[in-house]
């Protein structure tokens, strides 16, 4: 009896057209890859923008979009690194503000450029360590742990800042983070470098693979011997570090450090990551899509600025955009997504079963 069953199984091996179907399968996967829909959306928005305003496609305007988008984009990458482990980091805005304050304070105390930059980044990564410890060993849900940390860090920033703002007079610092290198603005260069590095980390390293596995199924990851605790802590460290980096850009733009500048960035970064296809359940998305998500939101608000849409209206549009993105990626739109995917599917394609 077992023989007949086995034979039946063998007959089910793919028929002669298998290579063709396998190729078709791969092609389909190429077009339904997680970055494709968001990239298409960006292209559509850019086309709309070019009709909406003659200034939209000018080099100056595009550079503006990139400049103002760089900070949110870097925060979004850090946020993605946490979200992919099924966590969330509400403290990124506060950490960015803390970086502005601490770097400005170090410079004001006569610290060198290197100490100011290094000190701010180390402190911010350290806050990430605390976030990670609270989540992993304190077993506090990420939402609450980072909410508490947000408040603590904001308080400390106000305390360090003392007055209303610590001015930065060091032109080297400002030139480095808000100037130009080889004719390209330095925030844009930083963003590109960070994006490429994190994209490579997530795609080609052992660590990246582990993060997707931990977010996709932490139980299976643990039972496969992955260092789940260490890696979850590292996710918050990376998020803290990148928030610090975004904070340095912010400090250079402001020419000063202020505890007030970070608020709102945590939600913007979450919105960007989610619009970029990251699922809050973890295990999905990629850093490039998070950046495109941030740039998409930035481009739309740029278009609205060019058309003189009021700030109130812009908020409404941004909210709708986030809801729409989540609806399409993980909400009750499974049928819609299936319909979209079926555009790339031939009629005779059937999923393989045993």
């Amino acid at each position: 009896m077992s023989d007949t069953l086995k034979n039946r199984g063998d007959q089910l091996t793919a028929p002669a057209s298998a290579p063709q179907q396998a190729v078709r399968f791969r092609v389909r996967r190429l077009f339904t890859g997680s970055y494709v829909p968001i990239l298409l959306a960006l292209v559509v928005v850019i086309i709309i923008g070019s009709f909406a305003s003659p200034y939209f496609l000018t080099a100056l305007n595009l550079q503006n979009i990139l400049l103002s988008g760089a900070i949110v984009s870097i925060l979004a990458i850090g946020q993605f690194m946490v979200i992919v482990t099924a966590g969330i980091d509400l403290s990124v805005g506060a950490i960015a503000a803390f970086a502005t304050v601490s770097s400005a304070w170090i410079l004001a105390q006569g610290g060198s450029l290197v100490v100011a930059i290094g000190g701010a980044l180390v402190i911010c990564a350290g806050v990430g360590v605390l976030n990670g410890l609270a989540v992993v060993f304190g077993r506090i849900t990420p939402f609450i742990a980072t909410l508490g940390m947000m408040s603590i860090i904001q308080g400390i920033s106000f305390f360090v800042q003392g007055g209303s703002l610590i001015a930065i007079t060091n032109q080297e610092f400002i030139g480095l983070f808000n100037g130009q290198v080889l004719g390209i603005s330095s925030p844009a260069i930083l963003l590109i470098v960070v994006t490429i590095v994190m994209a490579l980390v997530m795609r080609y390293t052992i660590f990246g693979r582990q993060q997707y596995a931990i977010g996709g199924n932490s139980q299976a990851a643990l039972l496969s011997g992955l260092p789940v605790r260490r890696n979850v802590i590292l996710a918050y460290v990376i998020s803290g570090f990148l928030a610090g980096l975004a904070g340095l850009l912010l400090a250079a733009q402001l020419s000063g450090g202020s505890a007030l500048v970070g608020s709102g960035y945590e939600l913007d970064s979450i919105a960007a990551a989610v619009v970029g296809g990251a699922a809050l359940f973890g295990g999905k998305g990629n850093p490039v899509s998070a950046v495109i998500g941030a740039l998409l939101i930035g481009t739309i608000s740029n278009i609205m600025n060019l058309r003189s849409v009021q700030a109130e209206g812009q908020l409404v549009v941004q909210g709708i955009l986030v809801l729409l993105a989540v609806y399409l990626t993980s909400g009750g739109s499974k049928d819609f997504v299936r319909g979209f995917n079926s555009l790339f599917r031939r009629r005779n394609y059937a999923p393989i079963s045993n």
Partner: protein
Amino acid sequence: MTMGTDSRSGSDPIGQEGRRDEPLLRLVGVSKSYPGVRALDGVDLEIWAGECHAILGQNGAGKSTLVKIMSGIEAPSEGELYFEGARVRFARPVDAQQAGIYTIHQELSLSPALTVAENVYISDLPRNKLGVINWNAVRRNAAAAVRNLGFDIPVDTPVQMLSVAEQQVVEIAKALHHRARVLLLDEPTATLPQPDVDRLFEVVDKLRSEGVAVVFISHRLDEVYRLCDRISVMRDGRRIQTRSVSELAPDAAVRSMVGASQVDFLGQITSGARRRINPQVVARDAPVIVDVRGLSDSHLLRDISLTVKVGEAVAVTGLVGSGQSELGAALFGSRARTAGEISVHTTRRLRARSPGEAIGAGLGMIPEDRKSQGLVLDMTVKANISLASLGSINRFGVRRGGKESDIADEMIRDLGIKVWDAEQVVGTLSGGNQQKVVFAKWIAAGADLLIINEPTRGVDVSAKESIYDGITRYLAEGGSVLLLTSELSEALMADRIHVMQNGRLTESFEHEATNLDHLLGLLR
């Protein structure tokens, strides 16, 4: 009465005939189908006032579906329900409750932060003319209700402060407050320590004497025989038989639960040589691969000692919930143990604080639930296969993609995993193929000993065969296996069989020294 009383429903142990001619609750031809599965198949059942009616069955026999239908959580695909002779249809749990059928689920449905009194009266707090709640009446009545059940629980305590047994009593008090006539207890003793079980049983006895019908879902035979008047045995979605406890001996009940299919299957082979999952004979003096001594944990496992030799297949079997799965987790480092030593290859002691350590020592684990514990469903076949052996494709932190693909392709070929390519997402595979991917993960990781937990639960017959084939091949290539299973026929394929009851290993036999009848006799 359109339907006559089923002749198999046995004698009438408590003489309802004199009291009433209708059962409280009657199911006629109830079936329930889910896509691809027929969970219930033409079940007739009668629940009479004042009886305690046990429903026995293995996992997957249809007990929980039956409970869902009686408590209004699911509607039957076919068949009818009658309450006191009148046809009823339950669209929601509230409908069943209004009829007088209350279910105490394993997961209690109390509001943890509210007090005992508030929970009992949650849906109809007594109010005075101004609409203000009469708290004195609430407290007084709730206290009386709880005391009436033989418990003395302060009614101002939030229920989260109570023990599980006390919480169950609060649930029962709530049900009685709503004039429950039929009480469904779904595995109520699963998480209870013994003294609390005794107290709960006193409550059930009291309810029964007051004419409430109690339906008791359990796989613990001793409790069923202590408590109940009648037993219905479920298997494969059918009601196999209903008998009074005096008519159905415990070993016959187990036999009925475990099923004729297994008995036939083995009966046929016992005439010749019984199937052996291990293709080779392991020498008596073969080296030991894992040696467990005196292992205990804080909850269930007590003083477990066993060894597995290189190339050997050892099974640990017992009814569901005897502790096999917990033993596997304790060995693999995913469950804390309080005592005991584990050594691998006689030299290496396992502190077993983490699965990573166990994997490093050459162990692998195929968990009971592959979807929630074995696989990352959103990842590719390739990524799942390499998950436990990422170290071997690590070059300064960078994943060696080429080597990873080669390993994955080799595994797909060797194990006959049916996919288009290694990049296919694992969640889109069939159950049998997913199980093969879990296997491939451990072969890729070079595991010497696989702890295999309930490998064939929830897979169909053909997939079962291919899983057994996989185990056989793994053994042929020099692997060793610790098989944890509640399927006796599966355990009987091993070289050595340990019997587990209530967290202890009670007996152990060589392959030839036991058979199904023998094991069935032990497991009651």
